[in-house]
């Protein structure tokens, strides 16, 4: 009798291990809910200390339950499987709890401080213990915009041109420069503050001013912008570029008319990420600018407050109301970062970016 040897057609995504029977699913569900329910019940009845009981009561219970289910479904080796799932989910949700705790504390305490006048007033008549009815972060918002704006204006052309050098030219030092940018991206922020301080202020060239703060932020922003911009330029297909060059375009017109439009959204993302990187930097500004209570729109002289230094200043005063003000500033700062974050997301997910993938 002839055996039929024609190969069986295999479904494209054959993954029999993902098929789980309904009984097993129920067991898994029970294993993940029952210990939690028991633990919550115990918590309500006995009034345990949350963290220690979580580690001493809930986690062992959950571990045993998952191991048992693993044993039931997959046999002896399923035990470790269950443990892996428990560990992953537990640690993952721990990070989630941390994130929520940070955000929630800022939002809650920040909104208690926030009021229209907190946004637009400055702190000229404010002492550390003045109530929250007067005074605000208006001058610090303006200061942040000015200081960060100046560093953006200086850094962005520099960083984009560096990215162009890394991707569009055949320069000899590309490897070296890439390494240096990588090294700079790990530069401790306090060191850049010390650098500008020792170069400009200690030598008596200038006193504390807004522009020294802007300069101190440049080494922090430069690597972020040029790295992301480099990635964006690299994503532009070589055919496009070669096509333009083959049609007789000069390197400059090929870049400005073909590569640049194709990489536009990526470059915008690079700039936004760079701004988000430096907008919360505190240490360099503490070393190169001095705090001020009044609005100062002059970057060349005089003290200028920014949101991070404002926050730092009020925290170090240590009074209840000053800490309250710090929370308010934290909320405003977080909102600015959030806006940049969302803008960067939107910019990087526009049509042209999707097409390239």
């Amino acid at each position, binding site marked *: 009798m002839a055996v039929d040897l024609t190969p069986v057609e295999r479904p494209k995504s054959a993954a029999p291990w993902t098929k789980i029977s309904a009984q097993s699913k129920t067991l898994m569900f029970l294993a993940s809910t029952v210990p939690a329910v028991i633990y919550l019940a115990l918590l309500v009845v006995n009034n345990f200390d949350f*963290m*220690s009981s979580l580690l001493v009561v809930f986690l062992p219970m959950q571990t045993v339950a998952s191991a048992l289910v693993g044993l039931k479904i*997959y046999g002896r*080796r399923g035990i*470790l499987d269950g*443990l*892996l799932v428990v*560990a*992953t989910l*537990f*640690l*993952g949700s*721990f*990070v989630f709890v*941390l*994130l929520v*705790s*940070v955000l929630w*504390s800022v939002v809650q*305490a920040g909104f208690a401080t926030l009021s229209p006048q907190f946004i637009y007033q400055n702190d000229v008549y404010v002492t550390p213990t003045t109530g929250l009815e007067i005074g605000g972060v208006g001058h610090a918002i303006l200061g942040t915009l000015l200081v960060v704006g100046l560093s953006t204006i200086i850094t962005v052309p*520099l*960083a*984009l*041109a*560096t990215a162009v*050098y*890394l991707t569009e*030219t*055949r*320069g000899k*030092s590309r490897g070296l*420069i890439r*390494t240096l940018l*990588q*090294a*700079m991206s*790990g*530069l*401790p*922020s*306090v060191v850049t503050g*010390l*650098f500008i301080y*020792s*170069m400009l202020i*200690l030598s008596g060239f200038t006193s504390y001013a807004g522009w020294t703060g802007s300069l101190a932020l440049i080494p922090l922003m430069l690597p972020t912008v040029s790295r992301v911009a480099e990635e964006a330029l690299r994503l532009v297909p070589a055919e496009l570029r070669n096509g333009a060059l083959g049609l007789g375009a*000069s*390197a*400059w017109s090929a870049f400005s008319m073909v590569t640049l439009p194709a990489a536009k959204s990526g470059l915008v993302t690079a700039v936004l990420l760079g701004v*988000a990187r430096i907008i*919360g*930097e*505190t240490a360099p500004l503490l070393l190169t600018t001095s705090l001020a209570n009044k609005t100062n729109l002059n970057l060349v002289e005089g003290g200028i407050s920014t949101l*991070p230094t404002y*926050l*730092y200043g009020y*925290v170090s005063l240590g009074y209840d109301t000053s800490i309250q003000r710090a929370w308010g500033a934290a909320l405003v*700062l977080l909102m600015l*970062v959030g806006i940049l*974050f969302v803008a960067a997301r939107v910019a990087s997910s526009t049509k042209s970016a999707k097409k390239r993938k």
Partner: protein
Amino acid sequence: MSELTEVVPPKRKLKVKASSTPDRIFYGIATAAAYSTIILVIAIMFFLSLRAWPTFEKFGFVNFIFGSGWDNTLESPSFAIGPMLYGSFLIAALGVILAVPMAISIAYFIEFMAPKPLAKTTALLVDLLAAIPSVVIGLWGLSIFSPVGAHWGEMLHDAFGFLPMFENDADNFLRTPFIAGFIVAVMIVPIIASITREIFSQIDQDLIKASLALGGNRESTFRKVILPTAAGGIVGGVLLALGRALGETVAIFFVLNLVFDEVNWFRIVLPEGGAIASLILSKFAEATADEVSALLAAGVVLFAFTLLINSIASFIVVKAQPWRK
């Protein structure tokens, strides 16, 4: 019939030099910008070292880096950063130990466990955590986490007090290296997680499917296939995070009690610790001229260490991703 001869393209050199004026300007600007980064790095090293030199000359490299004590009130002030340097590494190590399991769990969850929409949301949340400014995390650490962390420290002391690690004779569990390490962990989890995720997502799916098809389960696939393949990248990510942890300034300054006279070797729930970056911040405001030079010297040491760690890290990360050229 004419014979067909093969057409040999004329040999010619590709033009390397720009021919037209706009091109020359274009290349000129790009090159100038690129070289300005070299100048910037050299300037940072030059100016810091220039001002720091008197301190190194006066106290000697070894004494300054490994000695202890920081006092500007004496007749002849003495500056040394031994406890701060060690404290920086202790806190960074604590942060890494706490952060690595969390980061790997999150990366594993995003890449291999969660259904797609949930994975996307989680990745977004991790990026969000990375975007929170460190001063805000410092404020959270000071007002919200410190009491909780002190409570945890006390519980550790009660349960494991017989171990020298959890000794505490100060009757106070606030402002300890443990709390500082935890705050640092919150900041570096997203860094390690995103690099690990990147590496996980690049692992050849066939490897994983092969392991599963051969009867491997989730756990053995993770332990024997995913982890070994990704190990290099994870180590690189951890080192990058270590560099960030060493440079952390404000947040640690908020939550740590700096002790300059002696090194707190391992008693992590004792309110004594050190961190170079925070030392710079704490002493800067009222520094004398000599002290400023010493602070700059501390900055040089910090810069040197982070530079070293970062270069090793980026080397490893690049080696671990051969597909990225």
